[in-house]
């Protein structure tokens, strides 16, 4: 709701600007602001990988989206406009067969990598094979839907038979096992970023391979930093396309694990942008001094929730799950997270296609009702282990949640484990993790990324499972998800996704409480007015649109 309010204010300001200038488009921010110069960006953590086949975090995707375009890409724009898939290295969007199983694309003319080597259709094939061959986190996103991809992942031999690449014509044909409405999006995210066919099938972070984007990664000092410099051999065939975005000449990225120190550096103009939100003790100061001139917040395409394992009592009972939903207090959670939350109650974030506003079925907090439901379910005093990790502010959030469960009549205790071990642990079906913290930030702007990936009973796996509701018994839900996931995103399928969202709320599979807000905090050198480059659905911040005053 905060996000929508903010959007309305921006729209009014924008309308005045359009009247005055008369030339700005909806994504005008990407076309204004001067080019050139060098900036310094601060990251808290070194990216999980500087290799498009390996990275899955925002820390990785923010730089990689500037370096490795795929056959398709996303528009470099804020908000809904940035969720639109556009042709990247391909000359047009794919031709999809009537049965939805075959995708045909053709490379543009005059394409080359940053090392000058020409880009061929087989480079794309190899790029997808690298994802499958290296046990990349991208494997689970849906590339296994390509004919022969799963077999190749197992044997690492013979290539992916479902991708046919013709180097002489530049044609790429992709055959899917079954139709998948979100497949176009999978061709636009960094995992499908094209690298040369000679790139070894292992993580190339120390020496990132050439790409075709506006920038090239240089001077990687693992754990400390790296640079993005202009691609001096940017393809003539990409000029004026959605790939052709990059204003500053050089971006130096420094890793600084002390976020409070990052704030100090931005305030004193020693660095120009920090990727993470200010710490709780600095947020108030930054908000009061710099909002509107150097600082703003916007909701991300994410959902924060408490998962409840329907295979582990007492959460096998609907009333218990509903009780948790009734008890959760957004205001309390928001104070714990320094005001960086935006209230929501559905599975789909409001920026995502398929989201439809709906009444909150559990408009709490109502502890009395929650206690009644627990008593009705006969779950009073039921032992519950709450799972959490040690990454701030999760320990505090889970301490609150544990106390809340005790207040509504359960007998809860907190189990905190290292952040790196957390999702593998709760995603291990045999451990039967009862309830705990979970969140999801979109990989691509499509409702399937949330509902199919996180709630489809057919997608439950023994390990590394993302469906933490373990709702395997809900076969009807699986059938409905599979039916809509096979079809492209249309007005009709958007309604069906919204209906599935409401059904999941009725079943109280999750205790949803918020969408996380992200901040943009610039130094005084940056052009905050025209070049915020934020609220980009693909990677939160679009560094290519940053510019100096």
């Amino acid at each position, binding site marked *: 709701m905060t996000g929508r309010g903010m959007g309305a204010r921006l729209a009014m300001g924008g309308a005045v600007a359009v009247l005055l200038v008369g030339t700005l488009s909806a994504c005008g921010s990407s076309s204004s602001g001067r080019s050139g110069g060098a900036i310094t960006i601060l990251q808290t953590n070194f990216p999980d990988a500087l290799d498009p086949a390996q990275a899955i975090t925002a820390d990785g995707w923010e730089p990689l989206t500037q370096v490795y375009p795929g056959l398709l890409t996303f528009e470099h724009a804020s908000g809904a406009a940035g969720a639109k898939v556009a042709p990247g290295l391909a000359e047009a969007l794919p031709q999809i067969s009537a049965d939805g199983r075959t995708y045909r694309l053709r490379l543009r003319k005059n394409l080359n990598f940053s090392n000058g080597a020409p880009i061929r259709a087989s480079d794309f094939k190899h790029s997808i094979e690298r994802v499958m061959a290296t046990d990349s986190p991208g494997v689970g996103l849906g590339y296994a839907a390509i004919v022969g991809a799963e077999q190749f992942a197992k044997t690492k031999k013979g290539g992916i038979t479902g991708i046919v690449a013709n180097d002489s014509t530049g044609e790429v044909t992709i055959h899917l096992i079954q139709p998948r409405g979100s497949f176009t999006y999978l061709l636009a995210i960094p995992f499908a970023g094209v690298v040369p066919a000679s790139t070894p099938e292992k993580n190339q972070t120390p020496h990132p391979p050439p790409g075709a984007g506006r920038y090239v990664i240089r001077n990687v000092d693992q754990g400390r930093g790296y640079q993005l410099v202009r691609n001096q051999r940017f393809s003539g065939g990409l000029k004026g396309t959605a790939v052709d975005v990059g204003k500053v000449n050089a971006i130096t990225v420094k890793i600084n694990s002390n976020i*409070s120190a990052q704030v100090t550096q931005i305030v004193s103009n020693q660095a120009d942008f920090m990727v993470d939100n200010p*710490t*709780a*003790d*600095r*947020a*108030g100061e930054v*908000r*009061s001094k710099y909002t509107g001139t150097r600082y703003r917040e916007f909701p991300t395409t994410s959902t924060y929730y408490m998962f409840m394992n329907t295979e582990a009592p007492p959460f096998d009972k609907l009333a218990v799950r509903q009780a948790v939903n009734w008890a959760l*207090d957004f*205001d*309390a*959670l*928001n*104070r*714990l997270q*320094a*005001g960086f939350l935006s209230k929501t109650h559905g599975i789909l974030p409001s920026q995502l296609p398929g989201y439809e506003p709906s009444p909150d079925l559990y408009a709490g907090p109502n502890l009395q009702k929650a206690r009644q439901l627990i008593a009705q379910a006969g779950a009073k005093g039921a032992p519950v282990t709450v799972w959490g990790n*040690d990454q*701030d*502010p999760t*320990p*505090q959030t889970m*301490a*609150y949640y*544990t*106390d*809340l469960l*005790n207040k509504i009549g359960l007998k809860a*205790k*907190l*189990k*905190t*484990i*290292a952040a790196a*071990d957390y999702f593998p*642990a709760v995603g291990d079906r045999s451990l039967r993790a009862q309830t705990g913290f979970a969140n999801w930030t979109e990989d691509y702007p499509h409702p399937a990324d949330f509902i199919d990936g996180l709630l489809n009973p057919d997608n439950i796996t023994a390990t590394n499972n993302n469906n933490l509701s373990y709702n395997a018994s809900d076969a009807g839900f699986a059938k409905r998800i599979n039916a809509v996931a096979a079809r492209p995103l249309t007005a009709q399928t958007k309604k069906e996704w919204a209906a599935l969202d409401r059904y999941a709320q009725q079943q109280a599979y999750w205790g949803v409480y918020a969408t996380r807000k992200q901040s943009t905090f610039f130094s005084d050198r940056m052009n905050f007015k025209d070049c915020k480059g934020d609220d980009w659905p693909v990677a939160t911040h679009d560094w290519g649109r940053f510019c100096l005053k």
Partner: protein
Amino acid sequence: MAPNPSSEFAFEPSPSVPGVAATEGRPIEAVGPWSSARARLRRNRTAMTALAVFATIVACCLAAPLWADQVAHVGPDENNLTGTFERGGKRLYVVTPPPETKPVGPGWSGRYLLGADKNGRDEMVRLLYGGRNSLLVGFASALITTVVAVILGLLAGYFRGRTDLVVRTTFDIIWSFPVLLLGISLGTALAIGGLHLGPIDIESGSLWIPILVIGVIYIPYLGRPVRGQVLALREKEFVEAAVAQGAGPLRIMFGELLPNLASTILVFGTLIVANNILTEAALSFLGAGVQLPTPSWGNMIGEGVNLLSTAPHLTIVPGLAITLTVLALNVFGDGLRDALDPRAKVRLR
């Protein structure tokens, strides 16, 4: 059996101790080494003040439930993020709403006397309960260290040979790891899955995990000096006499040698408790000790560190508690050492 007077750690009568000096015409009143030590300790005002401070801290921590029930009316884990309370006629937020989200600071009121933490929990209540846990971990782990170290030191020093080789090598292996790194590694590993070893079944999050980890990592620090002393003592005449009287190894170790080690163990014991409280604080600060939401002084500092500039009381208050406790124990330990063995110079590294 009384300590052997020929031992290098024996206590000599001091003419300055009342009742010990020879009085003409009257028989000399015999005063045991423990009595004279007690008298010496009583005269050491610094040590007695430290003992009083420590006793006060312990008493306050033991009274935690009383404070929670009668004064603060809230438990240590009870979150109150959206609530308000009254102080000085004003109604205050426990945690202010955004954009500030700042917990209330210390002030003159029964509730939130030392302010609130990020979760809106009463800092005073958590300080007292945290103190109970920190002291429990400190004492219990020191007990484990002492018992195991003394037994192993006695065995190694008395039997020598292969037994000594095995014990000494074990001590050397543990000693070779930086103590905090070893503690963090063990604490983190056990924090995930708990400890399930034969009949030992400890769940993750239990206070027994930091107690065991800290108890184990300091064993060589006491075990080695004990072994050294036993090696020297076992050559003394009183041991030979015991052997000649037909005493077995167990009786010699625990009946003859152990009493001669008592002063060393006592002095080391106080220092180890202080040291273990510090180690608990360090491990809990790093997330490898007492697990949240169970409070300890260490993890309270860890929780407060992110709010250092806006709510410094969250780190200063538990920090002061640790400083006072450790200082009191160390000063008392020094006094105890001076009282028990004025000539010895024992230090825990």
